[in-house]
């Protein structure tokens, strides 16, 4: 990788952005009590500065070139503190791990997203969390979380990514269980941690596979080994891909490890916004995007991405999750739960996109989703703050009272539903679906069903999102008291809402500003295609006589020669062709969803008036079984509980008994023995050793007292004693002399 000073500067900037929240965390932990306002402004300012720097990187570096920047790596202090692990001879190590920073388009986008959402959430929290217990700790953990997330994004090797991944999980544990006095909250945080841990197991297995086969954990080295064909065991590659994806299944809440995400709503709303909307769950998506060549596996060499088992697996999981979660969101009454399941569903979308070979599409959706989901969560927080309840049954008709919240949430709902052309959500969803369509064209057997899953989900998304919207803001107020009490939130809460709404609009309208098509996609794609242009890659020189590989130059204008494979060319064509179809389909989905929701839940709509979905109504009766399943979350949680947790309880009991009687018995016995020995030693020491010392002291003192006896006060006795003593001394002298001589 070229390591020019410009590159190093970029990486240094990334490092600074990384360290800012860490510094904020340290200050918050140690000094927050002494700071005014308990130091919430510390981390907020840190985030803001980070945001400015990220924006600088975005505008200066990303916008300035058609393809953005190529991967820039930098190892700070490589031979000293940056060196993390060195096994073997330093010149020729068996294994070496350095802390390196890698900056490319993907990183910059993630940096911007993370710092932006984090900053807005900080600002929001200053209003929302005001007066809460452990106020300073909250900000500390927010800062730590941001630090972990940023670290995840800028690290250059997979082990460090894993470390930050874990750190993110840890922070989410703290933040979800923020109100740990509530049993449900602490349970939820444990659930989150446990579930993601299971995913991390798969992740770690994949790391081991990578380390063994590629010999290094640096991204570029891994990809190089795949591209060069020096990967040791080719059959393991697919397995590695699947194992690697298990991590994001846990972290990004894919089926079947999605169970923690809805429960994680026990945390404060800003936490939900930050973690579940924008960042933590995005970590999985980022990682899949970063490791895309790994998932492609064999196909990376051949250029055929759409036959790779891991990718198909990813797409299927993603699609299924999307539809699965959307279905459950239909029946949720807690506003945050709706949003939670919506998040799961949208994450499924992202995975679907990446699984279909469209990394850029998936990341584009990630970016836009971050904006409007964060907006939705913060807005819901505003509503909850006003009504003092999460339940939608207590809301209704709030649009009169909370204009800004209503407006911004409306924008977000339209975005997520996919309002055509105006809002960014449409474009990103369209990108995802088009990618799936094109992938289905490439490999119909594998990708057709995922595509339709995604399509149906679009419909469902629009439906349940508008359901939520109507129920919250329109119709009659269900709770008079709550309604009377409701008021708009303070500026610290509404400003972030406004900013996010603006961004939601802009991200879409951006297309009109930047004339070149596929601005985002180009930059993301160039990232993936970079190895083909890397001189070190074997495939750099196009093999002209192999039509399957690398024969077609890409239409980039920066002077570099980018090659694409035949399959990729076909994919692009399919993408372009399917664009129109998909657009219509998604527009249709949007409309139907909106109409349906309006029909059943809209204000003064026939459905809501007659309450057609009530259990007593005929439609309600018909849907009852489905409702039952949905309300019980398709029994997934119950299954887990029955199967795993009960078993765990049994094991727990057995091991508890064993520990208590056997292990502790031994330990206690040892303790008793120890006590006996030590008391014995103590006695020896006290009486024996100390006794000797004290005895010496006493003896000396008594000798001293004895010496005083001769000083009787009587002069003549002194004279006697003197003579006596003199004679004694002489006698002793003579005795010594005779003894010696």
């Amino acid at each position, binding site marked *: 990788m070229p390591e020019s000073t410009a590159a190093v500067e970029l990486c240094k900037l990334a490092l600074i952005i990384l360290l800012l929240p860490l510094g904020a965390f340290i200050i918050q932990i140690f000094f927050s009590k002494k700071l005014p306002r308990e130091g919430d402004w510390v981390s907020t300012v840190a985030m803001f500065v980070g945001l400015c720097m990220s924006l600088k990187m975005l505008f200066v570096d990303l916008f300035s070139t058609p393809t953005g920047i190529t991967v820039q790596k930098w190892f700070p202090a490589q031979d000293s503190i940056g060196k993390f692990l060195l096994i073997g001879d330093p010149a020729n190590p068996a294994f070496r791990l350095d802390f390196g920073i890698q900056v490319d388009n993907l990183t910059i986008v993630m940096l911007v997203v993370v710092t932006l959402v984090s900053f807005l959430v900080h600002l929001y929290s200053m209003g929302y969390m005001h007066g809460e217990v452990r106020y300073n700790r909250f900000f500390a953990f927010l800062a730590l979380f941001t630090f972990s997330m940023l670290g995840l994004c800028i690290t250059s090797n997979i082990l460090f990514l894993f470390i930050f991944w874990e750190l993110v999980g840890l922070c989410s544990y703290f933040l979800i269980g923020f109100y740990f006095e509530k049993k449900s909250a602490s349970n939820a945080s444990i659930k989150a941690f446990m579930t993601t841990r299971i995913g991390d197991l798969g992740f770690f297995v994949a790391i081991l596979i990578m380390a063994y086969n590629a010999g290094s954990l640096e991204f570029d080295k891994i990809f190089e080994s795949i591209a060069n064909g020096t990967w040791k065991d080719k059959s393991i590659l697919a397995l590695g891909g699947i194992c690697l994806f298990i991590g994001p299944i846990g972290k990004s809440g894919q089926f079947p490890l999605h169970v923690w995400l809805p429960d994680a709503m026990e945390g404060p709303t800003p936490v939900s916004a930050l973690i579940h909307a924008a960042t933590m769950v995005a970590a999985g998506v980022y990682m899949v995007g970063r490791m895309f060549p790994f998932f492609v596996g064999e196909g990376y060499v051949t250029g055929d991405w759409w036959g790779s088992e891991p990718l198909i697996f990813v797409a299927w999981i993603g699609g299924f999750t999307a539809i699965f979660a959307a279905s459950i969101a239909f029946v949720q009454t807690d506003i945050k739960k709706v949003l939670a399941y919506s998040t799961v569903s949208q994450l499924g979308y992202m995975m679907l996109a990446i699984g279909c070979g469209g990394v850029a599409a998936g990341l584009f959706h990630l970016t836009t989703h971050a904006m409007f989901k964060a907006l939705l969560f913060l807005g819901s927080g505003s509503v909850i703050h006003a009504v003092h309840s999460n339940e939608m049954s207590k809301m209704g008709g709030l649009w009169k009272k909370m204009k800004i919240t209503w407006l911004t949430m409306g924008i977000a709902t339209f975005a997520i539903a996919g309002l055509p052309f105006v809002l960014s959500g449409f474009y990103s969803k369209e990108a995802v679906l088009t990618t799936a369509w094109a992938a289905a064209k490439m490999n119909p057997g594998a990708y057709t069903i995922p595509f339709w899953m995604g399509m149906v989900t679009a419909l469902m998304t629009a439906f349940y999102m508008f359901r939520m919207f109507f129920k919250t803001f329109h119709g009659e107020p269900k709770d008079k008291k709550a309604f009377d009490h409701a008021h708009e939130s303070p500026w610290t809460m509404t400003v972030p809402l406004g900013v996010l709404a603006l961004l939601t609009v802009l991200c879409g309208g951006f297309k009109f500003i930047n004339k070149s098509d596929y601005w985002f996609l180009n930059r993301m794609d160039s990232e993936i295609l970079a190895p083909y242009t890397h001189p070190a890659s074997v495939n750099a020189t196009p093999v002209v006589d192999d039509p399957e590989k690398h024969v077609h130059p890409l239409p980039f204008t920066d002077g570099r020669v980018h090659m694409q494979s035949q399959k990729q060319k076909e994919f692009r064509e399919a993408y372009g062709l399917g664009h129109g179809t998909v657009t219509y389909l998604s527009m249709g989905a949007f409309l139907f969803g909106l109409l349906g929701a309006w029909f059943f839940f809209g204000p003064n709509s026939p459905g809501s008036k007659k309450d057609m979905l009530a259990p007593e109504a005929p439609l309600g009766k018909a849907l009852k079984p489905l409702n039952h399943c949905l309300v019980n979350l398709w029994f997934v949680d119950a299954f887990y509980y029955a199967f795993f947790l009960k078993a765990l309880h049994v094991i727990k009991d057995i091991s508890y008994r064993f520990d208590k009687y056997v292990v502790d018995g031994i330990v206690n016995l040892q303790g008793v023995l120890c006590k006996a020995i030590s008391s014995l030693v103590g006695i020896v020491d006290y009486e024996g050793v100390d006794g000797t010392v004290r005895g010496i*002291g006493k003896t*000396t*003192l008594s*000798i*001293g*007292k*004895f*010496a*005083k006896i*001769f*000083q009787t*006060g009587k*002069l003549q006795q*002194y*004279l006697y*004693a*003197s*003579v*006596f*003593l*003199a004679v*004694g*001394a*002489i006698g*002793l*002298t*003579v005795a*010594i*002399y005779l003894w*010696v*001589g």
Partner: protein
Amino acid sequence: MFLLNTDVNLAEKYERFGSEVIPKVVDSLHWFAPELQLAIFAIAVLLLDLFLPRKMSKHIAWLAIGGLIYAAATTFGLHHEEKKLFLGMIAIDSYSVFFKAFFLLGGIPFVLLSYVSKELENARMGEYYAILLATILGGMLMASANHILMAFMALELLSLGSYVLVGYHKRQNKSSEASLKYIIYGSVASAIMAYGLSILYGLSGSGEIPKILATLTADEGMGFAGFFALLLTFMGLAYKMATIPMHFWSPDVYEGAPTPITAFLSVASKAAGFALAMRLFGSFSLDVAPEAGGIDYSELWPIFLIVIAIVTMTLGNLAALTQTNVKRLFAYSSIAHAGYMMMGVVLLQIQGIEDQAAGFGISSVAYYLLAYLAMNLGAFAVVVLLENKTGSVELEEYAGLGWKAPFLGFSLVIFLFSLVGIPPTGGFMGKFQLIMAAVNSRGALPEGTEFLSAMILVMVAFALLNTAVSVYYYLKIIKTMFFSKIDTNAEKIAVPVLGSVVVALCLLLTIYLFVSASSLITETLHLEIYTGA
């Protein structure tokens, strides 16, 4: 005897007397200036006392101090060379100059202490200072004595003055009892010494100390008679130095005397005793062939001195352990320190006076005396100042005084540390020097005396053990002063400036002695005793 020696013409004798003796005497006066000045000042102080009203008599101290300074200046100003004065009575050598300066300059703090002490406020102080000056004069003469007569007379001058000063509180029982014990004990001791000196005179045929020593170191020189005579002489000096076996007076006298005099006794008279002791005992060569089939008495002598040193140290330290009176405690501690200094005398003994420059005997004793002056004087100064305030020298009364008088408390801590021998004080350096010199001297033992090497090691071992034992009672004082009645907000005792000045000077001297130990010890290595050669 003129009657017997009639072979020489009387007229010739008279003529010789006029032409040789008198010029010599007049010439000697020039070198005798410091002593003369001191004597004149003593008389002047006495005269001044006649004219001043009684209340102002204590200010005569300043005249005394002036005299001491003047005499000290003269001492330093004279260009000293090794010579005899007054027909062999007094020897001028670097050794005696050192001690003269020691007594003169060291006498100033004692005068100041007497000035500051409340104990002596109502007494007639003119005579006090006159006698003090005369006593100091006695000490100076003792250090430079070359003839047994001069030695004895100077000893007596020192002692007589001390007897009076000890009993200066005429009305107090303790003071008068102390002086009674002192004078009787002291007279007995000096009389025994006189007897011993007489035998020495008889053995050698001359009263001059170098000649006596020459006789004793000659072949078959030290027989039983010589040993016995030296023993008796040692008794007298042991009394002055307060070593075994003649130490019994010192606790009682120290307790009974006014505290400034106790201080004086503990330092000055001890130093004078050592000065004379080193002149007398430090010079027997051990390379003497024993008389056939008998005891080699010259070898007996170092053994004897070592035994004395060991017993003195031990007894002094042990008896001090259970003392409750601070002055008595310091008396026993002085005995112990005399024991340590005896180690130096032993070293000189082994080295022999011919080789004195090569050995550390004189230098270690001289350095230790300097350190001892600083620390003991300082400690006693603190005791005097505290006695002024509390009127008592019982240890219980010292409880909590460390907080009431922080400067004094702190200084006392330093002085006590110095007495124990903890760095960075002069006391530590002195002990260290003594022990190092003792251990090193084993290499220079003459043939046939290797048993002394083991004995020296035993002596050093005892010195170290005794240092350890002494920690107890010195630190007991510190503990009582600081940790008995912890009341850091107690009213601070006001200390007179002059007293603080004395304490501060002693403190500085203690630390200075540590800091410039090497240069000072090198200086003291140049001290030589006149051998008449």
